[in-house]
């Protein structure tokens, strides 16, 4: 984890007693943690509770986090251990194999949840996905390329600038404009 990393900056602040910085780590990773948990926790009603337990454990352990590995790798391990403890408490066996941290990001846990989830929440999730994907689809080509290279390929601004043959400032602006366009559609939906 390098010093330019947002996670590193936030962890340093938390370790220095700035507790409010932890809310950003929760906001950043809560959906990814919930998605990993769907592999273990079949009852959708428990997903939020177990996710909360994960972050409370993370908060307790943060003073001893030294940054030898990436924060997400560390968080992933805590998530899997918490999920296994949850299954043990429910007298259920954990799955025979674990998925790794990279696979976890693309793991489709929604199918497992659909059986137990309420129709309203399923409808809402579908609506959110549609709004995001439809807006991306309608973006000008250069904005679509910039946001895709950043979010899907994980490229840095410098790398995107080389590929798109434009200054870094332009990349920064294009990525922001793409996000801003999606946000204009997404914000009213989430505030309902």
């Amino acid at each position, binding site marked *: 984890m390098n010093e330019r990393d947002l996670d590193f*900056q936030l962890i340093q602040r938390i370790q220095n007693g700035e507790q409010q910085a*932890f809310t950003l780590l929760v906001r950043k990773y809560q959906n990814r943690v919930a998605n990993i948990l769907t592999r273990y926790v079949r009852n959708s009603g428990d997903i939020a509770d177990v*996710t909360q337990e994960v972050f409370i454990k993370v908060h307790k352990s943060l003073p001893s986090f030294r940054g030898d590995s990436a924060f997400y790798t560390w968080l992933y391990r805590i998530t899997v251990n918490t999920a296994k403890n949850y299954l043990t408490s429910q007298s259920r066996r954990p799955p025979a194999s674990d998925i790794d941290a990279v696979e976890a990001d693309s793991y489709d846990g929604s199918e497992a949840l659909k059986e137990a989830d309420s129709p309203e929440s399923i409808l809402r999730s579908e609506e959110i*996905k549609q709004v995001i994907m439809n807006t991306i689809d309608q973006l000008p080509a250069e904005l679509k390329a910039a946001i895709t290279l950043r979010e899907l390929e994980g490229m840095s601004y410098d790398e995107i600038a080389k590929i798109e043959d434009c200054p870094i400032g332009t990349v920064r602006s294009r990525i922001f404009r793409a996000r801003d366009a999606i946000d204009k559609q997404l914000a009213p939906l989430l505030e309902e």
Partner: protein
Amino acid sequence: MKETNEQLSSLIDNENIDSKSLDALINDKQQQAVFSRYQLMGDVMRNENAINIDISEQVMAEIAKQPTLETVTPIIANEPTPIKADNNVIAFVKRFGQYAIAASVAGVVVMTSFMTSQPVVENSGIEVLNTVPFGGGASPVSLQASQKLSKQALQDRHERLEALLKDHQLQLQVQQ
């Protein structure tokens, strides 16, 4: 607002993180909401079936309930535990301790006199390990081993030793 959000966008991507924008983000709920939505966009793009939950407020409320590190009293190893002088249990233990020490001393005296009065057991000649137990008097361990056999063995050893000495004296005479 637009400029702030552009800074927020690059901050999410680990580009251009300055402490001023980070301070603003940490302390501004509105910016945090934008941060969450930007994050959600990425999650959905990477995985169309990504789950969308917001538990940040519940987590922070739960953390606030828990004791902070500052309130934990450190345990100092060298600090002696104060003992109340008027405690009846401690007084009893103290008196009992005195009796216990006296009994131990008496036991050691009896044991020593018992050991000195025991007949000296002949050493088997093995220098490596003394198998005679504390308090004197060894009993045979093996059912097949008998006192007669050990005396025989001793005699054999004496005979071998005498033979070796005689041989040595003969060699000395030859050398002279």
